[in-house]
């Protein structure tokens, strides 16, 4: 205990130096917590959009559909049999909603614009995609009428407004030509370029009729009680061999971003190392200027372990103060941006539909991020301090006392 007291006093022998050393650690920890909260915010943003707009928590398709998904092969649609729904009778499953995805070229006369249509159950979808909240003009879909809602950018490109007619000409699941005129009921804006620019929604039964998919859907979207359990639930559903049951965690984009956030940890390491160089310097100086003192301590019977312990404690206090300050400032900044959000709509408006990157990033700090940030700062300083300190163990008390 008296070692700690001694170390504490030593910390204030050169207050300014100690504080500056602490500050470099504090900056590093602030940046690390900030960056990690940001990355998590990005992952949650994209993950949330994938759940809402692309796959739900779990998505069921046929295996063949999944393999050729880029082509959107309607002929490989799922059969919505009662047996299939029976399989999905699971305590954790809140909702099952069928969707039909289909690709068309839209446009009058001189324009050909590739677009993606979704036939959805309007009532269920309000709880999944929340599309009804995103209508900026007109109204949301209702199941009984031949209506369509389209993205605002797509509407602009097609020069369509609420009340206009959208003509869709495409092919059915059996490859025969088909078409329909739909009344534009509403225009939505999600803020994701790829979706606002190319997606429209029609009622599920209208889509089934249009594409000759009675009793079928291209995919089933499942919402579960606890998203974290989606992987296990997907495994438990255990449909027969033709079906592919994929939890959203396995989405390739989310996987890619997770790999990428790993690359960022190299950055954190560099920042931390540079910050620690200041600590190393300070400790070198501490050892240097106190050689005499340490000689005296040794002469008075303090063993090597205690001397090392004393100096480690001193470095530890610097690390503690620095990490603490960094944790506080990083934490405050991250939590503030969690509620405030950062507007990146410039970025999101130009992304593709594959990368559903919403316009506003809400930072997502967790206690885990904050605690590990703090511990890393503390640990790194102590480890770095070790190198200069070990030199002391070799000091001969008599010689040390004689040094100037």
């Amino acid at each position, binding site marked *: 205990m008296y070692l700690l007291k001694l170390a504490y006093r030593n910390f204030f022998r*050169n207050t*300014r*130096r100690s504080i*500056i*050393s602490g*500050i*470099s650690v504090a*900056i*590093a920890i602030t*940046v690390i917590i900030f*960056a990690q909260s940001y990355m998590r915010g990005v992952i949650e943003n994209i993950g949330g959009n994938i759940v809402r707009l692309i796959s739900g928590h779990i998505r069921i398709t046929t295996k063949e559909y999944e393999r*050729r998904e*880029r*082509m*959107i*092969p309607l*002929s490989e649609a799922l059969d919505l049999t009662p047996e299939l729904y029976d399989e999905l009778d699971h305590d954790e499953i809140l909702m099952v909603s069928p969707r039909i995805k289909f*690709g068309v*070229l839209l*446009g*009058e*006369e*001189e*324009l*050909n*614009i*590739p677009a993606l249509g979704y036939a959805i159950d309007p009532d269920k979808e309000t709880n999944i995609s929340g599309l009804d909240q995103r209508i900026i003009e007109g109204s949301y879909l209702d199941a009984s009428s031949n209506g369509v809602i389209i993205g605002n950018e797509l509407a602009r*490109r097609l020069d369509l407004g609420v009340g206009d007619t959208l003509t869709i*000409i495409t*092919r059915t699941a059996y490859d025969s030509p088909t078409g329909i005129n739909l009344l534009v009921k509403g225009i939505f804006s999600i803020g994701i370029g790829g979706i606002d*620019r190319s997606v429209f929604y029609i009622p599920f039964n209208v889509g089934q009729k249009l594409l000759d998919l009675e009793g079928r859907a291209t995919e089933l979207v499942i919402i579960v009680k606890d998203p974290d359990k989606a992987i296990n639930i997907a495994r438990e559903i255990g449909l027969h061999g033709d079906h592919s049951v994929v939890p959203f965690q396995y989405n*390739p*984009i989310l996987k*890619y971003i997770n*790999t990428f956030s790993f690359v960022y940890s190299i*950055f954190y390491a*560099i*920042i931390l*190392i*540079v*910050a620690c*160089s*200041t600590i*190393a*310097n*300070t400790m*070198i*100086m501490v050892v*240097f*200027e106190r050689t005499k003192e340490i000689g005296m301590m040794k002469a008075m019977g303090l063993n090597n372990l205690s001397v090392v312990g004393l100096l480690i404690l001193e470095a530890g206090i610097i690390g503690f103060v620095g990490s603490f300050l960094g944790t506080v400032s990083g934490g405050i900044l991250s939590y503030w941006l969690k509620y405030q959000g950062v507007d990146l709509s*410039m*970025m999101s408006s*130009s*992304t*593709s539909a*594959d*990368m559903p990157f919403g316009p506003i990033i809400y930072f997502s700090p967790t206690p885990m991020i904050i605690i590990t940030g703090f511990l890393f700062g503390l640990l790194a300083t102590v480890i770095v301090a070790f190198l200069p300190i070990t030199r002391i163990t070799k000091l001969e008390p008599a010689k040390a006392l004689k040094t100037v």
Partner: protein
Amino acid sequence: MKIFNLAWRNVFRHRRRTIITAAAISVGLAVMIYMDTMMNGLDSLAAGNIIDFETSHLEIFAKGYYREEGLFPLDTIIENPEFILQRIGKIKTIKGVTPRIKFQCRINNGIDELPVLGIGIDIEKESKVFETANTVVRGGYLKNQDDILIGKDLAKDMDLDVGSFLTIITRDQYGTYEAYDFTVSGLINTGHPLLDRNAALMHINIAQRLLSMHGITELCIKTRDDNKLMQLKQEIASEIGKNFEVYTYKELNAGIFEISGMKRSGQFMLALVVVIIAAVGIINTMLMAVMERIPEIGMLKAMGFGNYNIVKMFIYEGGIIGIFGSLFGCFLGLLASFHLVYFGLDLSHMLKDLDMIYPVKFIITGEINYMIVLGVFIFGVVVSVIVTLWPVRKATKLEPVEALRHV
């Protein structure tokens, strides 16, 4: 000069401390240089792909054709390209001109359909402007009238190979549905996702027949001197008159270059943080230097050294540390950059299935901008000197007599 000598010796009084302080600066600058090399590489790869395969340096459209990226209206086309060719024929900096027709269509392999960009090309003139012909990896270039070239990735997705039959379905200039059967003559591998995954190339006269039109959608122009692109643009604009418009590849892909700018500033901020932390390290070191030399400074002052000279001495010290750190940082950064330039970083296995907004495949190669390296070097030295000023202020306030007594 004497003061410089003094500073030089002082720097090496604590060799280890100096090295660690300088090394921190080095790491910061090295990261900055590496980031810049990577971003330059990405940008020039993207620009290269766009120039070599998608738009060339400059494109001429009929007035009102180009409204935004990704729209290919067929109502405002160049009806008479001969007129333009004649007008711009005299301009010497033009290396080649080729007509193209771009249109949205669906490609059908008998089972599946996929929307792709149809591109009608003039095989005679194409090679003077684009590199497409040199990227055929299987089969051959366009020969017969019903030949079609597709990207190797598209072929894989749609189970197509050289010799396969496919149908292109589109709507012509008047909105009528048209279809045409093609044979795949070859597969291309350009490195540009648009061409490799999302496009099909055919003879321009077939595209005209498919779309029931006589004109073309654009004239693509390659220049001999891409530093004078804007000049050439103006020259062409004045020749072709008000019925046509000319755009540079940068204007046509503003979104991509904007994103690149944002990424650049984001990464620069991260690198800047490293430098700031390193600068705190310098402050610490210089503070220690001042503190431990208080009696010495007192003596210097007593001997007639003015504050001006004291400050000068410390600034030299900070500067020397800064120069060493920056030199080594540039060396480290360049070393890492050379690796990126000559070996590249292959991220393609990580990103293979994704449609990226950036028109490159992810085998990143770097491109070193030596002006930036120089700029980073100067930045490192300047930062080192500036942050030295604060701890040195203390030294100027010392009274010689008191300082001499300081233990």
